[in-house]
């Protein structure tokens, strides 16, 4: 089996045993990229120089027989929304087309401490706004399972890269489902940790109260290893929780006896693909037969989540994206007549359609006279959505749902209808608004060979419960081993 097909924990054993070197492994991944990237289009920037330098450094440690961290020498792809020192960080936008970050995000510092290898920066919907990665200013990323379909978004590049074995693991960001939804659509594991679990310092902000960095991997064990590496308090982020971080690999227990699973009836509604529903119901049955108890629950405010999300996220985005004004860095339009004209031309030409749409939505929602009716009301509904979950988690340990109501759709199919596109995240936004952790793991394929994802949610800072249920499911199935033919 080629090295690029393996998982991080499998590769760590080989590196430790000195069967392979990180340089060989890194070369194997770049060879794979050379072979399939033309089809997949998952990367915006490849960072070979840095990668081989890091690989060599890791090899020195392995050769010396040092106690090496689990991600040492492991090729990892980074969503282009995470700042990487000295490397282009475009956020999939023309407006940051020439932006080289002067600093590293906290997660990057943590990965460097692990000795991980950065393969490159991955494609994404511009500023993480989208559900298909079609909103990138640079390229259309394809779903490795069917090149005619989208990989999901906004972390489409990071997810497709892992699914196509162009990286062993990757980092994405999830604001309203941007890790989980593409992970489901591409048949890999993707986790959004609890809001505050991972430092956002260096994550280019889309919606500050919702954004979280999270791992994308080929199995649940790698997910736990990635979490171990990136979680924890950061003095540079006031919203990063000052809580001890458990060793998440301790939650890799193939046993769900006594675990109470809640199935929210509101998540199985019209518009749900029949194959998706069947596959998810089958997965739930499997968990029940493995010893979990299953009960139906209600999350009554679910139907308001999309509307709430599309007020709060654009409102925050309208402020977060104000800094791209052409004054200090990034794109500046030519031939401006005066300051206001420079702002208008720079932002009109620098941002794509969806970003401009959301800036306008958010600006409107915050405007004098509309604030109470939109932003304030949305915040109140957000509290209601959160309290739905609080009540649910008094009764159950985890909530299990489909990750996406449909499998991957065709490229171009929903671009003309923003609302239809927004509904792709209908099952992910409620837990984002509540700040909950959630994972998507592969749980089946449709007749036409597209992956289906199972979403598992837990109360804040209870990632361990999620990992346990996900790991148990994985041990009983082999969905995570299926690979697309490329």
């Amino acid at each position: 089996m080629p090295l690029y097909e393996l998982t991080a924990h499998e590769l760590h054993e080989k590196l430790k045993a000195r069967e392979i070197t990180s340089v060989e492994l890194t070369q194997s991944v770049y060879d794979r990229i050379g072979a399939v990237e033309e089809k997949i289009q998952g990367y915006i920037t490849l960072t070979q120089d840095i990668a081989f330098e890091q690989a060599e450094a890791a090899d020195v440690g392995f050769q010396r027989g040092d106690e090496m961290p689990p991600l040492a020498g492991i090729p990892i792809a980074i969503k282009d929304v995470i700042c990487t020192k000295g490397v282009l960080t475009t956020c999939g936008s023309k407006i940051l087309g020439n932006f080289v970050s002067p600093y590293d995000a906290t997660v990057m510092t943590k990965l460097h401490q692990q000795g991980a290898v950065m393969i490159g920066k991955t494609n994404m919907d511009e500023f993480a706004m989208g559900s298909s990665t079609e909103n990138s200013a640079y390229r259309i990323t394809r779903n490795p399972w069917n090149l005619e379909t989208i990989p999901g978004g906004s972390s489409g590049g990071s997810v497709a890269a892992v699914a196509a074995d162009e990286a062993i693991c990757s980092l994405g960001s999830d604001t309203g489902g941007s890790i989980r939804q593409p992970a489901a659509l591409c048949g890999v594991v993707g986790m959004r940790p609890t809001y505050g679990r991972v430092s956002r310092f260096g994550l280019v902000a889309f919606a500050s109260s919702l954004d979280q960095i999270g791992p994308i991997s080929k199995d649940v064990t790698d997910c736990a290893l990635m979490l171990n590496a990136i979680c924890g308090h950061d003095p540079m982020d006031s919203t990063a929780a000052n809580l001890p971080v458990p060793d998440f690999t301790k939650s890799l227990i193939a046993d769900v006896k006594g675990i109470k699973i809640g199935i929210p009836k509101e998540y199985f509604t019209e518009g749900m693909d029949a194959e998706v529903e069947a596959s998810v119901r089958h997965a739930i049955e499997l968990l029940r037969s493995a010893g979990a108890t299953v009960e139906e629950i209600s999350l009554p405010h679910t139907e308001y989540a999309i509307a709430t999300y599309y007020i709060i996220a654009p409102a925050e985005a309208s402020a977060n994206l104000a800094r791209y004004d052409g004054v200090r860095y990034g794109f500046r339009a030519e031939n401006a007549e005066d300051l206001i004209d420079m702002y208008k031309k720079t932002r009109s030409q620098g941002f794509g359609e969806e970003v401009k749409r959301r800036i306008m939505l958010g600006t409107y929602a915050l405007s004098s006279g509309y604030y109470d009716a939109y932003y304030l009301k949305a915040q109140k509904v957000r509290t209601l959505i959160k309290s739905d979950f609080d009540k649910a988690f008094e009764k159950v340990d985890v909530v299990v749902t489909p990750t996406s109501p449909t499998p991957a759709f065709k490229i171009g199919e929903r671009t003309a209808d923003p609302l239809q596109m927004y509904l792709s995240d209908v099952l992910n936004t409620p837990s984002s608004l509540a700040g909950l952790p959630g994972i998507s793991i592969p749980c089946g394929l449709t007749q036409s060979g597209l992956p289906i994802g199972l979403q598992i949610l837990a109360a804040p800072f209870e990632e361990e419960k999620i990992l346990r249920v996900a790991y148990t499911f994985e041990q009983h199935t082999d969905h995570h081993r299926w690979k697309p033919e490329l």
Partner: protein
Amino acid sequence: MADKKYETVIGLEIHAEFSTHSKLFCTCEVKFGSDANTQTCPICLGMPGVLPVMNKRALEFAIRAGLAMNCKIASYSKFDRKNYFYPDLPKGYQISQYDLPLACDGYVDFEFEDEIKRVRIHRVHLEEDAGKLVHADVTGDPNRSYVDFNRSCVPLLEIVSEPNLRSPAAAIAYWRAVKEILEYIDVSDCNMEEGSFRCDANISLRPVGSEEFGTRTELKNKNSFQHVLAALQYEEKRQARILDEGGTVEQVTLLYDLNTGRTSPMRSKEEAHDYRYFPEPDLAPFEVDPEEVERLRSTLPELPAERRKRFVEEYGIPAYDAGFLTTTRQMADFFDETARLSGDPKASSNWIMGDVSALLNSAGIGIQDAKVTAAHLSELIQLIKGGTISGKIAKSVIADVFETGKFPKQIVEEKGLAQISDTSAIEAVVDQVIAAHSGPAQDYRDGKKKALGFLVGQVMRATRGKANPQMVNQLLRRKLDG
């Protein structure tokens, strides 16, 4: 104002930069006068992906300032984003406070026209400062403007008064009082030239006796007492003229042109702001511990108004002197210590208000930067009281102290300036003078008592000023009267 038909109503929004070691949301140093953009980092430059982290010290400074202005300190507060585009604002929003300011409902007492006036403080809040635009007048480049972000993210306190001020001069007096307070509690150096202390003023007129406010105009961002005074006086007259003519005042933001002495409205584009405030998601709302507030209250120094009162009561000096001596905290500390060490408050006050101030002024420095300390001055006062030197000699000694930082005793010794208080030494000179000036001596004996002054002067001259003048007087009289 001259026209008694209208009452003037003024409120001020004062901005003071804190002199904390580091900025409000990053660890860059707060330092004036550095090369452009050298006191910056990705955070205060508004780079993608950065986050603010609260400077606890700035929060303490703001609470101290709120307490010094007799405000209620909020038990729960938060930061908000104030959104607008300007090249000096790197994030496109300013982190400020909107509906839950750190402090509110306070007051400041200040002296104006020999009365104590009280201004209500509506609110006091903490925010970050913006950078500074640098134009052709500095760079010589007419085609470009530059931005210096050294000031970006420096903690800025905004103090909003109620419209309790009734004249431009009273507004300035209040503004000065706030400056004094902030300097006293050591949170800001209030350096107006560097722009670390500035204000916006709202002014309106209403018919005398009316309860309703007239339409106000706003004067932006001024950092000079004289300019604000002139601008308010101009605006007061302008509004009166409009009202006299039956017109209505338009609510606008005005710029004051120093050269023409006139105000003119800013372009509406520049002021038509909907700031779209919303809670800053990157900073959690915070609770203020009441015990911490009490601890900070206990660290507040005696404020200028209290201090003036105490100087009058404790030291028995005139109110005018007390006012002068409390202009700055350093000056007041200097007086306080000199008075205590010398045991002679009045002499301390006279020396400080006279020679010391003159020397400071001509050197263009404040007392904190001078070589003369309370120990120096009190020693000098002791030397005079003990009869070692005369007041006249003391004037040259203090100048020497100012120059060299040496102690008065040492200077007197080195230069041989000690008074001659030895009766026999003085008596010999007195005898010589009487003999040499028999005319005036006779005049005195004949009842022309004024002649004594001439003879005293001759003795002092002969001793090069070192004879103890009282002893010279006594000896001359004894010789001549005897």
